[in-house]
């Protein structure tokens, strides 16, 4: 087993928001005491619904959020949260981002070759000829033609634009690439192309991915391990097979039960677990477990104390009071009893 290349320890991000009344400052905590690890050459997916803080967590790791970040983000054992100046540049060389929307992540007034070489210009001092050579190679690597490099972003399709975004992220030869919903803005056929491209590049360049997504199908296809987030907290963190075969947290279970299946027998047997209601108000979070208001198996104790993220055997960690040492889903037991 390889070592952790990227590790978040007790990472929190909060944004100051102006409260009613003078002088008071309220904070919106988007990411609350989150920890996870990504092993070298592997892919960790962070999944969760909108507003769960997954994108904020990812951007905090890339040092791109304006909010207050506390905790540690270790890249090769070195905390990157306090870095500035040259060291920050060095970190940016090693950690790059592929953004969600290929229509807004490319500067409409720049030629695509300039977009791709921007990280090279700002972060490295390679000679001009070498930069040009790298750009040409990258165009080839992502499946674009070098003749297209003088064009402007609006002359490309969505999939091609995302390829440009990928080429940009690759230009400094980073070790870690954060894919922030990198395919969710694309249609399904193009999604598959881009995902396959990402996998090929992972192999060719030895990349480590932090893959932010809400699409469990995509996650299953791409990832080695998964962290599930809900309201700024990681509720479950496990290997892919573990998580998909034996989801422990009620939220994860509900999430997986919502994935549509093409297999008719599976579809017959599938029991949809519904979670009623809306996520809680982020300014007024419940005292205990954050999922308590929607949890189908919540008990009295769940209202009082927030469950810690605990190891339940193997590298399977879950934050739920109802999961015992035998690592069985509280919902699963319930379902088995009824059947």
């Amino acid at each position, binding site marked *: 087993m390889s070592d952790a290349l990227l590790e978040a320890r007790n990472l929190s991000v909060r944004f100051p928001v102006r409260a009613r009344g003078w002088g008071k400052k309220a904070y919106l905590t988007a990411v609350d005491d989150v920890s996870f690890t990504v092993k070298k050459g592997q892919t960790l997916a962070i999944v969760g619904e909108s507003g769960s803080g997954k994108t904020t967590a990812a951007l905090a790791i890339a040092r*791109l959020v304006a909010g207050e970040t506390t905790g540690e983000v270790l890249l090769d054992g070195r905390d990157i949260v306090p870095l500035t100046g040259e060291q920050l540049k060095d970190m940016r060389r090693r950690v790059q*981002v592929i953004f969600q929307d290929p229509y807004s*992540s490319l*500067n409409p007034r720049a030629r695509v070759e300039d977009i791709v070489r921007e990280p090279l210009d700002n972060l490295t001092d390679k000679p001009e000829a070498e930069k040009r050579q790298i750009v040409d190679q990258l165009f080839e690597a992502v499946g674009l*033609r070098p003749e297209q490099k*003088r*064009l402007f972003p609006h002359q490309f399709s969505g999939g091609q634009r995302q390829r440009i975004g990928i080429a*940009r992220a690759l230009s400094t030869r980073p070790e870690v690439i954060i894919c922030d919903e990198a395919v969710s803005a694309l249609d399904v056929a193009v999604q598959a192309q881009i995902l396959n491209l990402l996998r090929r590049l992972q192999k060719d360049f030895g990349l480590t991915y932090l893959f932010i997504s809400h699409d469990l199908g995509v996650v299953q296809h791409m990832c080695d391990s998964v962290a599930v987030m809900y309201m700024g907290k990681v509720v479950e963190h496990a290997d892919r097979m573990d998580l998909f075969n034996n989801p422990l947290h009620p939220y994860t279970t509900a999430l997986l039960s919502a994935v549509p299946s093409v297999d008719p027998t599976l579809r017959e047997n599938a029991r949809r677990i519904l979670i009623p209601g809306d996520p809680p108000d982020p300014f007024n979070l419940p005292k205990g477990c954050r999922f308590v208001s929607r949890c189908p198996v919540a008990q009295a104790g769940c209202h009082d104390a927030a469950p810690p993220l605990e190891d339940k055997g193997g590298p399977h960690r879950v934050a739920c009071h109802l999961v015992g040492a035998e690592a069985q889903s509280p919902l699963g037991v319930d379902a088995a009893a009824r059947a």
Partner: protein
Amino acid sequence: MSDPSIPLPPVEKARSPLSEAWEMFRRNHSAMAGLVILTFIVLGAIFGPMLYPTDPFDMVWAPFSPPGEEGYLLGTDYLGRDLMAQIIHGARVTLIIGLSAAIVTIVIGVTIGALAGFYRGWVEEVLMRITEFFQVLPTLLFSMVIVALFGATLPMITFAIGIVSWTAVARITRAEFLRIRELEYVTASRAAGAPSGKLMFKVILPNAAPPIIVQSALMVGSAILFEAGLSFLGLTDPNIVSWGQIIGSNRQYILESGYTVTIPGLAIFVTVLAISLVGDGLNDALNPKLRQR
């Protein structure tokens, strides 16, 4: 990846956003008419004095000789000076004041708006309070005070016009910066290591340019009007002819010899109208929401 036996389709030509805007502009008839008139006026201002070298300050004939009579196409003014020469020579000054006042406006407005919109926080608070201070000043009065205090020289008049009219540009620039700084490509540039200066002026500003360009084009027109207003009130360099100054110096004779006021007024009207047409055309051409209509 692709089959080499199938020839790839040719790569389309690189079409910059600006070249597309020009396409749009060319299809706009009134804007093109404005551009033609404006080109004519600018060429006249540049080359006119060489082709019509009569000194606009020379007394060439009897005062108040009506247009077309006595061999003077536009007649003579109250001192018997050739009005045609005044209009031609005055065009240069009028356009220079309009243009340089607009430049002063853009430099001050864009700098303040960009800093306020990019840095937010207390920088924005301070800069926007300053902007509001200038906004509530009575513009004509304030510029009159400046010109009266520091002398009616051409640079001072330009500065006086610029200093009272930059607020609109600052507000537009700030609004655009506030919008664009949140877009993903700005975050992407940040991830690519771009320093603040580069983000502001190389990434955000080019994308914020369209409304600023439009505002600036219209600003040239209003600066010309402003200069006419100051000249009309006599706050102008008496050794330089400008269209406003012609109107101002002839205003007592407006009832007897109306043409001495009407003709330079018409020149201002046509110029400002042409600039406005061009400005509106730019607005349509640069505004992506109106594209492909």
